[in-house]
């Protein structure tokens, strides 16, 4: 029992790392642009499918990098053509816009790649367990954690030390001042959007290797990242990180005792956090509330 529990905590962390990757992308866009990107799941699926198509040409490792980049490029196009017009308007409109885009993404994915689920081939050595006694930890799971950790570290380094990163963080707190200081806010938002979508695409490639690809998989993966953001506190990227890991562990542990509540527990956790701390674990008071 103890072993099972320990395993599930580990496993929860692995799942949590994946949620973090996805939620951070969502969170970046929400913080700087005030847009809840409902189409994030659509971008994720697209990333996975692009990797599927690119793998025969670029190999797995090439696809792992190029597919998210292409997704990000498409993201910027959509941001420039559609979403940009909604900045500063009632958040209702960006919600509806991305909601509609999510429909289009699902339909387009099915149109291009078919309704039939597709298998994703991962390098053979990743598909093996780490050791006979730890058979449930495969190299692929570790690989997901490593990729997530590297991506998150790079993101935080970028935000902390690069000029763009500093501006993104400053813009999250006070966009008006940043703008008066002569920063091109439009460009900053586009870049930030691209960054968020890149993370979605990357999550998609990773999810494809673990789950296979299916046009409808996006919406199921979207909700946990929502909760990660709410639990961690809107406006705080470290909060999102903590939130994602927390709900991962919570659902992992619950799966041992009460499998049918393994999703509900995320929501219970969210309700508890909101009751105790309405702005989320690390959220700033007054921001977006």
């Amino acid at each position, binding site marked *: 029992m103890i072993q*099972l529990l320990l*395993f*599930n905590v580990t*496993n929860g962390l692995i*799942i949590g790392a994946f949620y973090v990757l996805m939620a951070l992308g969502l969170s970046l866009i929400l913080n700087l642009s005030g847009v809840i990107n409902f189409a994030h799941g659509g971008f994720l699926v697209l990333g996975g499918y692009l990797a599927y198509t690119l793998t025969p040409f670029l190999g797995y490792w090439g696809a792992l990098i190029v597919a998210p980049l292409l997704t990000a490029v498409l993201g910027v196009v959509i941001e420039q053509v559609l979403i940009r017009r909604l900045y500063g308007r009632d958040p209702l409109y960006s919600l509806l816009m991305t909601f509609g885009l999510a429909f289009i993404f*699902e*339909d387009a994915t*099915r*149109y291009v790649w*078919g*309704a*039939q*689920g*597709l*298998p*994703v*081939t991962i390098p053979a050595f990743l*598909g*093996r*367990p780490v050791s*006979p006694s730890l*058979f*449930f930890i*495969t190299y*692929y799971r570790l690989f997901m954690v490593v990729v997530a950790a590297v991506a998150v570290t790079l993101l935080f380094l970028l935000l902390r030390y690069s000029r763009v990163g500093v501006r993104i963080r400053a813009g999250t707190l006070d966009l008006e001042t940043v703008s008066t200081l002569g920063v091109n806010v439009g460009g900053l938002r586009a870049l930030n959007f691209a960054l968020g979508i890149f993370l979605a695409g990357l999550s998609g490639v990773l999810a494809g290797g*673990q*789950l*296979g690809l*299916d*046009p*409808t998989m996006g919406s*199921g993966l979207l909700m946990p990242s929502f909760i990660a953001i709410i639990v961690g506190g809107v406006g705080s990227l470290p909060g999102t990180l903590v939130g994602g890991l927390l709900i991962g562990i919570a659902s*992992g542990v619950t*799966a*041992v005792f009460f*499998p*049918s509540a*393994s*999703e509900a527990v995320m929501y219970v956790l969210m309700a508890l956090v909101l009751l105790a701390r309405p702005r989320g674990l690390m959220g700033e008071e007054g921001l977006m509330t």
Partner: protein
Amino acid sequence: MEVPRIGAVIGRRAVIRTVATAGLAQLAAPFILRGARGDTPLRIGMIDPLTGAYAAPARNEVMGAELAVSRLNAAGGMLGRPVELLVEDSANDVGTGVQKARKLVERDHVDFLIGDVNSAVAQAIAQVAMENKILHIVSGGHTDTITGKDCKWNVYRVCNTTRMESNAVSDILFKKYGKKWHFITPDYTFGHTLQAALEANLKRLGGIETGAELTPLGTTDFSAYLIKARAANPDVIILLVQGQDMVNCLKQIVQFGIDKEVPIAGTQQELESLEGLPSEARIGSWMFEWYWNQPNVPHLAEFIADIRKVNKGRVPTARHWFGFASVMTMALVAAQEKTTDAVKLAHALSDFELPPEVKLQPNKVYYRAGDHQLMLSAFIGEARAHGKDDPDDLFAVQQVVAGDAVAPPVADTGCVLHWPA
């Protein structure tokens, strides 16, 4: 007066499957109805979840039904009238399914209804069909109650019940693998009834159940359940999960190397699922409800060739056959009775046997009078990583069992038919 025109009659909504056609062009498409003799067409309404999680099997069912309709029309239609197939998307949602059923009945005045892959939607449509006295064939929903305690005089079903599936495999699995079974069961009615049926058989055979893992529908990570299953040290792990859950579970079993220690088996497997798996995860003993690669079955080659033409060269799956058999059943029984009256046709379908050009399988295949369930053969065998003669030949059939040998007696199904006065 209508000018007689020559050409295949394709209902305006038969175009629905033609995904390759741009959507806008379809919107602009006018009401095309070229009756060979200017007759009012006979309408078959088909409701299936063309979008959502079951889109792949649903679209295959529609493809099979369309093939049947085009064959019928090429041979002069049904009762001398052209046949029109009106396809509606239930979007995997009961409210939408009911809505579409009413639309087909009230507005389009369909003579027959077919559908749905989703059992819940199928049962809701059956209700609408009964209220309106329309013959309804359930093409792809497996829940026992459809031909069990919720059976209806106007409702027939071509696909299996869960009881039939478990009876088909129990003895064979017991002989092949041994008496200690461990279940991985989806936690909803379908899984529960399937597991209960297998447990009853296991008890009768004198076996032991080492445990059962109830997994929530839509589980993506099966590791917690697989650890428990392996620790119980069974002779065989029985997977009852379906669709995407099946795909995820099998992949993880192979990644963890569990299949090297414990054999994997289950009841129903579908070609759609096997095709969604990486080759190394195509393992285990299963049953198919229909399989395309059978030796010496008359008319089969023709069916496969016809489906390949419309399916990007791929072979038919059981779902194609379900759609095909549903439409053909209606055509055959209507031709025999020379009427579209639902009550007469429903009576005539009792113990109605499918001819070789429709059944496309060995054994006697007929609709049982007591519960309106089609007695179709069960194809038992093993999955394989790569097709032998064809990339889609992913299943090695070892045994074909007649449907009435595995179906529980009518008295056990709970079905009591109430015919209209």
